[in-house]
């Protein structure tokens, strides 16, 4: 299985304090039953300097995370994943079911952002996923710009979370993103090439 990356043993806020310009590597777990799509998403993520773990089913994803109830001792410390990207239509456990299982966790796993990918632009499907807590719904084929945007968002969010945790210390960041409690939107309203969907209202912008 995965070799634990030393980077993730360190406390993120501490890292940011020591060297604010060093971006720790994002570990992404990608789930897709299609071999071709797994290869493509893996490449997209590697080009984006992410550490990638790819599995072919929801069941395997849960196993990897240690949530399948079998390896109770593994849990959070052994495997740290910063983002889960899952295909929607998969045999056995769908991406939606995987999403639900993760969001129903009473542990930190619930906080891992989950992005659902699908080749089908079905409104009810999108709504369901977003309601269940999906971070974003991406239309396939996923583009590099989708991954870049996603990565930026996750990184910025981690910084904010780190700052909130160490709120006593004053720290200046070079990236200059404003401190805000509300979630920033993943897709900018003026971005015509955006293929992500945040709400039913923005479905029209989604690429078919």
């Amino acid at each position: 299985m995965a070799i634990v990356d030393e980077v993730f043993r360190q406390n993120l806020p501490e890292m940011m304090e020591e060297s604010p310009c060093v971006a720790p590597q994002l570990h992404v777990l990608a789930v897709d039953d299609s071999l071709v799509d797994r290869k493509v998403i893996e490449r997209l993520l590697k080009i984006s300097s992410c550490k990638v773990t790819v599995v072919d089913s929801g069941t395997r994803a849960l196993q990897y995370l240690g949530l399948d109830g079998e390896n109770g001792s593994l849990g959070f410390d052994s495997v740290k994943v910063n983002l889960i990207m899952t295909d929607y239509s998969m045999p056995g456990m769908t991406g939606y079911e995987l999403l639900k299982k993760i969001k129903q966790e009473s542990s930190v796993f619930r906080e891992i952002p989950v992005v659902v990918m699908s080749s089908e632009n079905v409104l009810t499907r999108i709504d369901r996923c977003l309601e269940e807590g999906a971070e974003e719904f991406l239309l396939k084929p996923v583009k590099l710009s989708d991954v870049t945007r996603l990565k930026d968002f996750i990184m910025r969010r981690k910084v904010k979370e780190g700052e909130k945790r160490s709120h006593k210390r004053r720290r200046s960041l070079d990236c200059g993103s404003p401190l805000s409690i509300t979630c920033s939107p993943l897709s900018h309203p003026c971005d015509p090439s955006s293929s992500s969907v945040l709400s039913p209202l923005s479905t029209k912008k989604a690429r078919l």
Partner: protein
Amino acid sequence: MDRNQSRRQLTAMKQSLFDQGLLDEQFVQLEELQDDANPNFVEEIVTLYYRDSSRLISNIEQALKERTPLDFNKLDTLMHQFKGSSSSIGAKKVKAECNLFREYCRAGNAEGCMKSFQQLKKEYAALRKKLEAYFQLARQAGPQETACRSK
């Protein structure tokens, strides 16, 4: 001299594939993922696609040969998978045939399914030949032609 000629031919060939509607933007997106360390990524993906989808093709073929009435749900599910992979490599025309097939499935039109599947197989085979020629030429032309990244 030979290499330059190859490169010109390669560009022309690619343009032709686009003009004929065989490939779409996704193919370009894939080419942009190539770099010096991975100069043949698209060829690898396409090879994988043909190898992996042949299984789906024979499953669909098998399902179409089975007893009538056809299991349209099963056929639609299989075709959905096939369409997904085809879309991921930018196979525009093949993808369009997939959509047509699925429409026939939803309409419960067995005749339509069989006809469109024949057409789909033709497009699928034709694209394979053309892409094989393209990648062969790409190898001759050298990595600079298709790789868009410096690192």
